[in-house]
């Protein structure tokens, strides 16, 4: 028993080191004075100043943030509908197809999604004249499509864990379907909706492949700029950018953990 736990602990430790060492080195070298990324030249914040002065990166970052905000809002609306339909609306024609369409985007290789959407946009433009040209709009549609699948899965699993008696009680008391949803179900699944929004935001902000296919000239998102810079070689500004992103995510995850722990304590008190 003892030997097994030593094996477990040490191999898990190695696993966590494997997950974190590259990220830690990114953070450390973002404060490096030297231009050579792996030679230590003393602490400095100069790559952060360089990052904020880099107009190309800043324009792309702003575009990506706008796209991610709109995408995640659309994805949350459509994904919640899809998740609700799948777990609360009983049987209907096409249910199997819809659940397949929800599961497939999660594992579809990005190159296929990107190419197929681009070809759809091109075909639609020549047939109906819409979407006229490609850019922010087409990226938002593409991102919404795969993000809504993630939201639907999260909402669906939350709904399946939920106590259905609350909804039944509301129905017995004469709630209309719409007020049942907005007054009872929606508040109950709000944690799932929030995490679905956040997940969609990060997925959209991070996507390189799909955006490269469906974006038009002059509409480079942040990952597209990062990719072209990184291909040229390692750039310290990107290290600074990565550190900022890791910091934001770490704060978010710690806050979520704190919240969860508080809720656990609260529910423990009620027991």
């Amino acid at each position: 028993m003892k030997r097994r736990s030593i094996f477990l602990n040490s191999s898990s430790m190695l696993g966590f080191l494997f997950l974190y060492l590259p990220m830690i080195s990114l953070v450390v070298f973002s404060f490096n004075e030297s231009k050579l990324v792996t030679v230590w030249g003393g602490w400095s914040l100069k790559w952060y100043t360089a990052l904020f002065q880099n107009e190309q990166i800043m324009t792309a970052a702003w575009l990506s943030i706008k796209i991610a905000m709109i995408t995640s809002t659309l994805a949350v609306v459509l994904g919640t509908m899809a998740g609700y339909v799948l777990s609360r609306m009983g049987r209907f024609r096409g249910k199997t197809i819809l659940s397949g369409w929800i599961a497939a985007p999660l594992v579809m290789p990005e190159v296929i999604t990107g190419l197929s959407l681009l070809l759809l946009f091109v075909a639609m433009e020549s047939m109906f004249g819409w979407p006229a040209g490609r850019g922010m709009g087409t990226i938002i549609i593409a991102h919404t499509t795969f993000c809504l699948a993630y939201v639907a899965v999260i909402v669906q699993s939350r709904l399946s864990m939920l106590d259905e008696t609350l909804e039944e009680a509301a129905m017995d008391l004469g709630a209309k379907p719409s007020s049942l949803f907005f007054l009872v179900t929606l508040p109950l699944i709000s944690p799932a909706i929030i995490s679905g929004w956040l997940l969609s935001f990060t997925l959209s902000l991070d996507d390189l492949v799909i955006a490269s296919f469906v974006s038009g000239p002059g509409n480079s998102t942040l990952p597209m700029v990062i990719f072209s810079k990184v291909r040229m070689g390692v750039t310290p500004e990107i290290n600074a950018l990565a550190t900022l992103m890791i910091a934001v995510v770490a704060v978010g995850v710690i806050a979520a953990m704190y919240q969860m722990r508080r809720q656990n304590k609260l529910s423990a008190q009620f027991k």
Partner: protein
Amino acid sequence: MNMKALTLPNSILDTIGRYTVKSSFFANTNWGRLSVISVPTLWLAIFFFVPFIVVFKISLAESAISIPPYTSLFDWDAEEAFLSIKLSLANYLYLFEDTLYIEAYWSSIKIAAVSTFFTLIIAFPMAYLIARSPPEKRTLLLALVVLPFWTSFLLRVYAWIGFLKKNGVINDVLMGLGITDQPITMIQTDFAVYIGIIYTYLPFMILPLYTALEKMDVTLLEAAEDLGAKAYQSFYLITLPLAVPGIIAGCLLVFIPAVGEFVIPALLGASDTLMIGRVLWDEFFLNRDWPMASAVATVMLLVLVLPVMLITNRAESKEGAK
């Protein structure tokens, strides 16, 4: 004769009956319910399903120097009222003629399978440890697994460039410790691609494994131990079979996207690291051959993605039936 005369009205009645049932269904249609169902379904139909048909259609066209850069399949001659349909199978034939494509498909499967295997090996003890930790520690460890998943995928791949390159962190450490005198080439090799895939997809393997292992009844292991089973025996006979749903889900979440991976081979691989996602990308962006790229995508979908999805679907429904 009589029999036939009798059956005919019957079948008509039957049809009418069905028709009336249908129309009463429509009369009772709940429009609110119908719209809630149809909005997401229509969105996915238009932006997820129809695109595949468009891809298949264009894979049968020929590349052309025009906007868009492919020929039209249908040609309508209004004067002669003559519709000609031209389907080119040349792209598909070329896929089999030029060994590049078959090699790329093959090596993508190999790279994805090997990486999925190693991801599973690394993820299993981690998921096991988390599932057996006390609740307080479990939240922390889960957060540690989830955190990289929330940070940029692209930047995490980028982190490995600094780690693996010639004057990178690993070589510095190895040379500093005197293990080697000259840097080992690690970046731009297949090895780096394996590392990149395992690294970025590890959380996708840990989470479903954890979900499966957490549900496991620990008393089973205690019972096995009491009955004299050795540790490896109870692992093979109890833990592993109970983890199967998690293993299937995790492998699916790693293998399929890894087969079509583009970013990792592009940033970490050698220029001759063949992966089909990269071939498709180059066909589209460098050669601007949209029909060829579509043919590559169609074959990838039919040969690689669909079968794996069907197999796992069947395996999952079997699991569910148990």
